[in-house]
């Protein structure tokens, strides 16, 4: 990291890179007419592996492409020119990295659903992949835990357990298991494994005596000082620091890269989480973000000011495609395919994808199957996310006599689809869908947003760079996120509640920007599209039918502004709670085709393909 401290809030030119496992992407952000815009981007193969074994080579190649496109000198031989002087150099250089498999961690806590879960949340929020959660009550015997630690060889271990003043014996027992396992780090064999202790402060001395000789032990504040409150920040910050010091420092070329950057290099998912949190707090909205990749799917959410991230390690579109099929089951994938196709044929096609994971669909049929799988991968990942993004467990409740027959349990999911304001998708299958309408439909079908929800996709997956940028210049990060990162698809309007087939579920009165008044009626099982742009929102009066809810209460009218986008306003009358697809194949296919047509999902269009 650069030692020279400068005021980053005044920066005019920012260079950001993301070193992925295969590609290094660079973007250039410039202050134009008082606002920050992403102006140019370039990419080059990542050079962590042999023959280069120096990540900075790929970074320089990507930056060189940006340099050429922007017609601006950024590099002076193999050095980034900083600060900018005239039309040379940049004011800020930042980077993220997921090369080498990212940050792989194990976490440990006394009770799996309490301190274990808090530790997992801290690690996931910092951008790590959590390989396993050890807990006193996980049902495994000590030798099984020891063997598991040795087998997984994590980059780092986060040990927590006990509130301050709470149990000592349990957390010390976990430390003794770690000591007995004597784990070796995955990278850098000569180094001791970084272990962060974030548990009961009364146990620190004993933990120190147990672990300081065999591991590189760091002690931070308790992750759960009392059961009623989580304190994740010290652990997350320490994970970032240790990621830099230990994991990155062992990877080829990273020491040099770290010396270039103006902010610590963040793990890519951690940076995505950072921008999601920044946007949620900046605009005061609830956000769900999803990044669907080839092997994994990450979901980020901010509800009730609480950030959560989950990694569904075996749900992805290429290497994990067969696992999606196994978990979702064939009928669930088939229900999204708008073709008369039997299960055997579908299985063969998905099997082909498994054999050649990096192929992309060449025909419409293949595309439709791929997008059907994507819907299920997203749906399953979101189910996992909802199960993880929950309130704290083990918290005392206050009751009144009115709770006699409605005693809510703690640990309820924080994810409230009715309260969701913005749903952001990224990853190849969403960002690179031939038509944005398809991305919108995939998001709607998989997440089933309720009420009124804005939809967007990340245009070129620049969220990681913006995440790390938000650490040094929040204004720049949020402006670029809003204007260049996001491609606003539109808004989904979906009434919630049971309704009979063909019955009216919504009366919509739309006042378009040109003053035209459009009155439409939405019936159960129907979808329709109203073109609208993001820049000129549509005034709307929406009255759900009796017993249905659009966010204002059952049957209550809502007056609001609806933001369109490249797709527009999508009225979805297919039902929420319950959402049911026809069972009978012919009827199902007919319905899917009707909805595709209504939302212009697969029709030929002059709209250019996504970049």
């Amino acid at each position, binding site marked *: 990291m650069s030692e020279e401290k400068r005021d980053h809030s005044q920066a005019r030119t920012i260079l950001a890179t993301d070193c992925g496992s295969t590609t290094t992407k660079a973007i250039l952000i410039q202050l134009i007419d008082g606002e920050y815009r992403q102006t140019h981007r370039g990419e080059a193969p990542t050079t962590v592996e042999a023959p280069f074994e120096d990540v900075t080579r790929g970074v320089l190649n990507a930056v060189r492409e940006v340099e050429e496109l922007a017609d601006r000198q950024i590099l002076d031989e193999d050095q980034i020119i900083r600060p900018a002087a005239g039309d040379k150099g940049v004011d800020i250089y930042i980077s993220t990295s997921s090369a080498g498999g990212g940050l792989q961690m194990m976490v440990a806590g006394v*009770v799996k659903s309490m301190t274990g879960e808090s530790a997992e949340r801290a690690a996931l929020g910092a951008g790590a992949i959590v390989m396993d959660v050890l807990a006193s009550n996980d049902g495994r015997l000590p030798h099984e835990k020891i063997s598991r630690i040795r087998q997984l060889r994590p980059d780092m271990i986060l040990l927590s357990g006990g509130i301050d003043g*709470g*149990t000592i014996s349990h957390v010390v027992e976990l430390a003794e298991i770690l000591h007995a396992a004597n784990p070796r780090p995955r990278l850098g064999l000569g180094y001791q494994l970084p272990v962060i202790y974030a548990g009961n402060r009364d146990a620190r001395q004993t933990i120190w005596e147990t672990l300081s000789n065999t591991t590189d032990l760091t002690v931070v504040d308790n992750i759960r000082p009392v*059961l009623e409150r989580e304190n994740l920040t010290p652990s997350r910050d320490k994970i970032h620091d240790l990621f830099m010091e230990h994991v990155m420092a062992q990877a080829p070329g990273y020491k040099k890269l770290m010396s270039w950057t103006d902010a610590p290099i963040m793990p890519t998912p951690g940076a995505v989480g950072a921008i999601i949190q920044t946007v949620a707090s900046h605009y005061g909205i609830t956000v769900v973000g999803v990044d669907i990749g080839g092997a994994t799917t990450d979901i980020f959410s901010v509800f009730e000011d609480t950030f959560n991230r989950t990694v569904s390690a075996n749900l992805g579109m290429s290497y994990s495609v067969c696992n999606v099929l196994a978990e979702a089951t064939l009928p669930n994938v088939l229900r999204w395919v708008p073709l008369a196709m039997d299960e055997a044929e579908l299985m063969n096609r998905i099997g082909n994808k498994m054999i050649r994971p990096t192929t992309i669909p060449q025909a419409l049929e293949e595309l439709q199957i791929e997008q059907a799988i994507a819907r299920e991968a997203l749906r399953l990942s979101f189910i996992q996310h909802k199960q993880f993004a929950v309130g704290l*467990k083990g918290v*005392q*409740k206050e*009751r009144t*006599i009115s709770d006699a027959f409605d*005693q809510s349990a703690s640990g309820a999911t924080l994810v409230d689809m009715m309260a969701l304001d913005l749903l952001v998708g990224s990853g190849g299958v969403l960002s690179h869908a031939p038509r944005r309408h398809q991305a919108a439909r995939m998001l709607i079908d998989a997440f089933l947003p309720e009420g009124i929800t804005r939809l967007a996709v990340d245009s070129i997956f620049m969220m990681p760079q913006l995440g790390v940028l938000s650490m040094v210049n929040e204004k720049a990060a949020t402006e670029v996120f809003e204007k260049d990162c996001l491609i606003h698809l539109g808004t989904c309007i979906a009434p919630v509640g049971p309704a009979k087939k063909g019955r009216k579920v919504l009366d919509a009165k739309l006042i378009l920007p040109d003053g035209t008044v459009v009155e439409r009626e939405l019936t159960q099982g129907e979808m329709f599209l109203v073109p609208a742009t993001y820049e000129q929102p549509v005034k709307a009066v929406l009255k759900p039918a009796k017993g249905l809810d659009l966010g204002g209460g059952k049957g209550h009218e809502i007056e609001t502004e609806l933001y369109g986008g490249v797709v527009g306003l999508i009225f979805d009358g297919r039902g929420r709670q319950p959402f049911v697809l026809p069972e009978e194949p012919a009827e199902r296919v007919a319905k899917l085709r009707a909805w595709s047509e209504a939302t212009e999902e697969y029709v030929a269009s002059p709209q250019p393909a996504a970049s």
Partner: protein
Amino acid sequence: MKPGNARRAALAVLFCLSLASVIPAAAQDLPAAPPAPPLDLTAEDTPNDRGHAIALSWVLSPDDDGSGRVTGYSVWRAVYRPGVAPADLDWTRVGSHSAGYLGDERLTHSDVSDDIVNNLPYLYRVEADGPGGASAVLLPASIMARAQWFNRARWNMLLAVLVLSAGIMYWIQKAQTSDIYLRPVAGLKAFDEAIGRATEMGNPVLFVPGIMDMDQIETLAGVSILGYVGKMTARYETPLEVPVSRSLVMAHAREVVKESYLQAGRPDLYNDDMIHYLTDDQFGYAAAVDGIMLRQKPAACFYQGKFYAESLILAETGNSIGAIQIAGTASPAQLPFFITACDYTLIGEEFFAASAYLSQEKRAIGSIRGQDVGKLIFMVALILGVFLVSLEAVGVRLPGWLDITALFDVSSGG
């Protein structure tokens, strides 16, 4: 009239009056004839019983007309012996009735006694007693008391029991092969959480199995839940504290908890002192448990059993020390206190279903489902019955097959 004359006249009147009252009394002292005997004495074995009972009925004596010639009736019983004259039998007076004054109405009498031997013939004699003596009527034929296998007045109950049993059997079978949905009960799901909290806080778990003895079904249910809690505390390696107020409960609870620790693979963590006796006295017990709470600060308190006035004292103390509290009782009077002072409360049926719910044992779950279905059928029948009876009450004529009174033989208590 002179005062002396007036006194004489009054004395004369009094003499006449006293003479008038003496003359009929003198007439009653004459020997009177016994009243006419009762008529038409019949007897039958009391139906739908276990025997040992004979139902008698007779027509009142014609002299039982309020004139005082019949003062009451005596019922006599003798074991019938063929060839022996009734007068020679060994008669026992087994009942009496006051006079009837009812003209030709019949009187009935149930002779119920374990002295009556089933399937042994008896003769009965009923005497009309009066000032003039007694006159009897003899049962024309002997009668035997018999036990019946079925109470036919209660066939509906038999049907209900069969249906319920069949339902429970069906669901038990079904539970073996398929998953049965049980409504999530927050209080039951919170058991693990409460014990987890105690583990993280390094404080013990307190379990109070009520203040009553093992003869109470709620205490049994509470101790059954203690088994599950014991298993969890063994697994979490968290201290368990069970103060009891009855010696039998202590002995039983010790066995249950010991077994739980054994099942959890941690018999080393068990010791008898976990379950200890305090006192039988209600408020002495409450005070002692409060003391334990304030000294040991348990992080999770379970109140599962039969409670009375001590419920609020315990729950409020538990609340004040910041423990997660889960109560369970079927005592309606204590529920409001538990609901307001505890984190979760198992109400009535939930409490009894807890052990099946917590163990997730398939047979127990099937049994719960069967019972629930039975209850549903009874609820529907009850509502339907009330509706039909109401219709009848307002004068709606129902077809014969819908005559609810006859159908369920309401008059006979069926």
